[in-house]
């Protein structure tokens, strides 16, 4: 595979001081019991620069969470991974590192995760206070209540709920507890998978602003979200995923404003917003266990033609046979 010539325009890749994360040709497939394969992620490449926030968006089931799990070595046993994902100055390959290294040196310390289903990631038999206390002690060496209070406050977790167990929290509160835990280590790379589900607008904004603040000091954030308003609020760049592939990666300002997205799928996704046309893209995404041969969007695309029987390459930040790309 040739490395991508670029990963979209914008500040990324041009910043001095290298990249926080460099992903090349990352593919993940799951072997099913009947011997077939589900191709959850296919040949994904992108870079994250210091101080950058990249939003990853796309329809439910398109592979976003699998991508995040792959980066942290959290995939189940039936998964196989290809490609590379180099972290930080020493270029540790997250996809090749063994579990001991990932557990001791990477997760929480060099790469934090705000998980998609927080309730499932909190330890059910322990209070939020006890989990935060332990994480603060482990990752910062600080003991005592002040650090715990500060950690809770960063994620707007109410202090008077610290003594509760996870099952005594609403979805939104569990979400904030998980965010607080993920922020403690001040890891250079933070992956946040739907960190605002179940939160109202004010809390969404507080939460994503706090995540954004995390990227000062040259840290980077990968924000996986369905909330396009939240993505537009804090992202520098946007990556759009469809059926396991990146189909567009570009500047957030141009994507949400003018000239807008270029890929037909990305246009459809934005037009579906209630503040825009509020019309769905017809049909549903293909099954990742039975992907069609060419462009996976062809069955739903009003611009599809014979050329679309071949998979379009990602060129100048967009993967489509019928989009004009400006050659630099």
């Amino acid at each position, binding site marked *: 595979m040739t490395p991508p010539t670029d990963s979209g325009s914008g500040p990324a890749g041009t910043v001095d001081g290298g990249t926080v994360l460099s992903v090349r040709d990352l593919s993940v497939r799951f072997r099913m019991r009947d011997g077939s394969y589900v191709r959850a992620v296919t040949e994904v490449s992108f870079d994250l620069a210091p101080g950058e926030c990249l939003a990853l968006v796309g329809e439910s089931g398109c592979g976003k969470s699998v991508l995040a799990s792959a980066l942290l070595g959290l995939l189940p046993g039936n998964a196989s991974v290809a490609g590379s994902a180099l972290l930080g100055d020493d270029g540790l390959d997250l996809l090749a590192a063994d579990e001991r290294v990932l557990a001791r040196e990477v997760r929480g310390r060099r790469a934090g995760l705000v998980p998609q289903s927080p309730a499932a990631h909190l330890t059910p038999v322990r209070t939020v206070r006890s989990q935060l206390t332990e994480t603060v002690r482990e990752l910062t060496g600080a003991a005592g209540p002040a650090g715990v209070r500060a950690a809770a406050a960063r994620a707007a977790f109410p202090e008077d709920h610290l003594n509760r167990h996870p099952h005594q929290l609403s979805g*939104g*509160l569990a979400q904030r507890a998980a965010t607080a835990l993920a922020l403690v280590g001040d890891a250079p790379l933070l992956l946040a998978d739907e960190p605002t589900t179940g939160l109202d607008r*004010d809390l969404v904004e507080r939460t994503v602003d706090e995540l954004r603040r995390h990227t000062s000091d040259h840290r980077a954030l990968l924000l996986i979200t*369905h909330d396009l308003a939240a993505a537009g609020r804090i992202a520098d760049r946007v990556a759009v995923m469809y059926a396991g592939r990146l189909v567009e990666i570009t500047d957030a300002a141009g994507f949400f404003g003018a000239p807008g997205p270029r890929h037909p799928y990305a246009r459809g996704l934005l037009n579906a917003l209630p503040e825009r046309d509020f019309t*769905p*893209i017809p049909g549903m995404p293909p099954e990742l266990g039975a992907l069609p041969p060419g462009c996976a969007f062809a069955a739903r695309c009003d611009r599809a033609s014979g050329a679309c029987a071949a998979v379009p390459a990602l060129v100048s930040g967009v993967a489509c046979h019928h989009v004009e790309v400006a050659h630099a």
Partner: protein
Amino acid sequence: MLELRSVTAGYDRRAPVVRDVSLTVSAGEAVGLQGPSGCGKSTLARVAALLHRPDSGQVVLDGETARGWRHRAPRAQRTAFGVVFQQPRLSADPRLPLAELIAEPLRSNGRPTDGVRELAETVGLGADLLGRRPHEVSDGQLQRACLARALALRPRWLVCDEMTAMLDASTTAALVGVVEAYRRESGAGLLAVGHDRVLLERWCDRTVGWAELTSR
């Protein structure tokens, strides 16, 4: 008409989360109820759908006061509601293939289940997905099945509690489209609960804020 009259409800009588709230959904009307996280709007939605017994106040369906809640509600009143919740994974039996999931209300009410395929089609689920279990489909696909289940008994009212909060923009627009097509054809009313004001205002005939409801 669906009327909530001075409803007080919660999980602890000494500290109700809903206090003295009244709200009316006229015949065929779509009402949005918007409020912040944890304000009690889901509790009120559950009272409206006869799933949660209020501490005081009444729910009146087309002039008839509700007397029972959950399985104690008279069948005709219970089946007048179709309900869709935020988290399809919490409300779907993980052992049931989608076809069975959709047919569940038909079965438990002794109705024929031969319309399930057609029902699945109206929510955009093809026959190939109907044999799958919940963990084998995406959240969007599972929520489509939950909506089909809610429509199975052709309810007079739909109660959608954050139905689309965990879905992408396109799936959201698709599911709202399904609800609206059903309402056009059946004349059913709707109570849609959520925190997204832009969505509720685009979707519903009128949208009330939680603060307005509770300050009267």
